[in-house]
């Protein structure tokens, strides 16, 4: 680790914070439907959408109707994306003449993109036509992110309102998020990426002659436009097989900084927007500080572990000065790679600049823990905020038990029903991750997909189900997920990880919105100070380590000690 490396990390994070503070005010205005500087241009478009779809923007929905709208929208997205893949061979914009996508892969990919996961059991440049990439995958990069933020703001409104029966209008929310937040930002980021050298073309590929005289086909396509929303929407699905490690998707260290900035911006701003929306900015700041501690702690562990290197490689004569460079890009370096890795798994992005499979065991432990915790520091667009607010509800309940008072958060009493809903949401992750991982261990067909044996193989399977359930989408690599078993079970993990989590959250929103806001009194537990931050950190550690410590111990932790003992997998 070097001062220069930590300076890079600090500068990028400060840039994100500097942009997120003013942007959070804009987010609040957009979600409240207030006039902003883009209203003169975009408001007519927004109204046009409502007229076209028959939406009455003044009519709000109960939490049940909001949930049903989310489900209906997701079914439509799933069917259209599935059909697009299955028919791509007879549809236009297929310059490379790709076949239709196989049924199980189309199922997996459709679920993956409507849930904001972007797990990819395929190589984009060798499987998907330009039409599928643009009309299917890129469009769902926008819509799935908008859906996440819509759900998050339904919950935010529930905390902000008193004795309310509605939590917003789903159709209005996704329209506003897409139109005012995601589209303008994506256009700006895509243009900057083009300037940095990311291709944006409808050409299929070009053929080059290498120095040895061999022919090499270089895939091209509309990458900058997908790259921008891939990061802004915390989607993570790359145009190319190698994702952001590919020089076309991410040409330089500077473009890496831009990508980290883009993937952290909206989640960070959303948390601050939460504070503004409930009328107490300190509440958002307390949550953001907790998230930042977890994120930076993860960066520190990765950075330390990777620069410390792999003693087995050192013993073979590899210069240890650069640390463990296996699976990394020299042009990004250790510090930015550590920050990107922690940020892409701390959010629900899942883009990668390095192969997580090649990290040292302790370096790999961090992204694994981040995704097992549900990618909530600062989380995916919207999903991070509502995921973390569920943890807050549990922390407040624990605090209430300790002091013997009815737990309250922002004046809302947290009672039996709220706790049941919060636990329903929280428990779905370990149920899916550990259940499917355990089942895979028993199946030869699943075990045959492993690239590595021993604890590393266990990490590969747990990571795959953790990544899909938490809608992250990054792969540890080393696992052949393109089989019928994995295509189907990982698809189910993504589906339940998204909907079986979001639906109790919306029910929680409905329950909280209906409650009266109790005035602050001398007995109110403060939720905006360092004590609450400490409590949140304690709850996070207890909650997630209790769920996953056995899997972590048998995976990366034992692998670390075996590595020190001279054994690699």
């Amino acid at each position, binding site marked *: 680790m070097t001062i220069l490396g930590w300076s890079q990390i600090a500068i990028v994070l400060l840039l994100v914070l500097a942009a997120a503070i003013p942007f959070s005010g804009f987010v609040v205005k957009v979600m409240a439907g207030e006039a902003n500087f883009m209203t003169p241009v975009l408001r007519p478009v927004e109204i046009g959408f409502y007229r076209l779809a028959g939406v009455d923007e003044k009519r709000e929905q109960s939490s049940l109707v909001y949930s049903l709208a989310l489900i209906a929208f997701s079914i439509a997205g799933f069917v259209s994306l599935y059909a697009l893949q299955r028919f791509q061979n007879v549809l236009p914009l297929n310059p490379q003449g790709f076949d239709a996508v196989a049924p199980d892969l189309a199922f997996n990919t459709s679920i993956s993109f409507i849930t904001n996961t972007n797990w990819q*059991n395929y190589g984009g440049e060798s499987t998907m036509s330009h039409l599928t990439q643009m009309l299917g995958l890129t469009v769902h990069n926008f819509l799935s992110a908008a859906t996440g933020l819509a759900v998050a703001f339904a919950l935010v409104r529930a905390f902000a309102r008193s004795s309310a029966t509605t939590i917003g209008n789903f159709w209005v929310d996704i329209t506003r998020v897409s139109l005012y937040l995601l589209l303008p930002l994506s256009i700006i980021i895509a243009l900057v990426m083009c300037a940095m050298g990311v291709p944006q073309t409808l050409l299929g590929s070009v053929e080059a002659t290498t120095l040895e005289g061999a022919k090499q086909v270089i895939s091209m396509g509309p990458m900058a436009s997908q790259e921008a929303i891939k990061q802004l929407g915390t989607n*993570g699905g790359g145009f190319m097989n190698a994702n952001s490690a590919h020089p076309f998707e991410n040409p330089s260290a500077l473009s890496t900084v831009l990508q980290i900035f883009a993937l952290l911006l909206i989640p960070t701003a959303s948390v601050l927007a939460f504070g503004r929306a409930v009328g107490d900015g300190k509440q958002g700041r307390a949550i953001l500080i907790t998230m930042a501690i977890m994120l930076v702690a993860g960066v520190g562990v990765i950075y330390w572990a990777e620069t410390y290197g792999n003693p087995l490689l050192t013993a073979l004569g590899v210069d240890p000065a650069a640390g463990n460079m296996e699976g990394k890009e020299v042009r990004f370096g250790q510090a930015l790679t550590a920050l990107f890795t922690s940020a892409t798994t701390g959010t629900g992005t899942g883009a990668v600049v390095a192969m997580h499979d090649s990290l040292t065991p302790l370096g790999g432990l961090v992204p694994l823990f981040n995704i097992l915790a549900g990618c909530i520091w600062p989380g995916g667009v919207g999903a991070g905020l509502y995921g973390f607010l569920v943890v807050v509800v549990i922390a407040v309940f624990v605090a209430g038990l300790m002091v013997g008072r009815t737990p309250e958060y922002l004046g809302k009493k947290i009672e039996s029903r709220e706790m049941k809903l919060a636990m329903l949401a929280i428990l779905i992750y370990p149920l899916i991750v550990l259940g499917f991982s355990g089942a895979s261990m028993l199946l030869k067909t699943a075990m045959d997909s492993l690239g590595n044996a021993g604890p590393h193989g266990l990490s590969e399977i747990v990571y795959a189900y953790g990544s899909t359930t938490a809608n992250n989408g990054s792969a540890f690599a080393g696992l*052949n997920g393109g089989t019928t078993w994995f295509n189907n079970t990982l698809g189910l993990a993504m589906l339940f990880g998204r909907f079986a989590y979001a639906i109790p959250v919306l029910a929680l929103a409905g329950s909280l919105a209906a409650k009266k806001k109790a005035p602050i009194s001398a007995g109110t537990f403060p939720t905006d100070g360092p004590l609450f931050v400490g409590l949140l950190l304690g709850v996070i550690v207890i909650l997630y380590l209790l769920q996953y410590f056995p899997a972590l111990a048998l995976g990366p932790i034992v692998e670390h000690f075996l590595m020190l003992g001279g054994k690699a997998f």
Partner: protein
Amino acid sequence: MRATASSGSDAPLCFPYPAASNDGWIAYRGPADKAAWKTGIQAMFDAIELIVGIALIGAMALYAYACQRL
């Protein structure tokens, strides 16, 4: 991100089905034609995956209703 080394795009079945076997599913049901059976089963599986996806997401509506009643 991308998870595996195989593209998954080389499955034998593609839409629309090849002209020779594009005369309806009933044509696949002759027990003598093993290849046609295989294609038919794959087509069934194809439909099942789509229906399972719709059914599971749709089932979330019941889950939403149950959560309201909790």
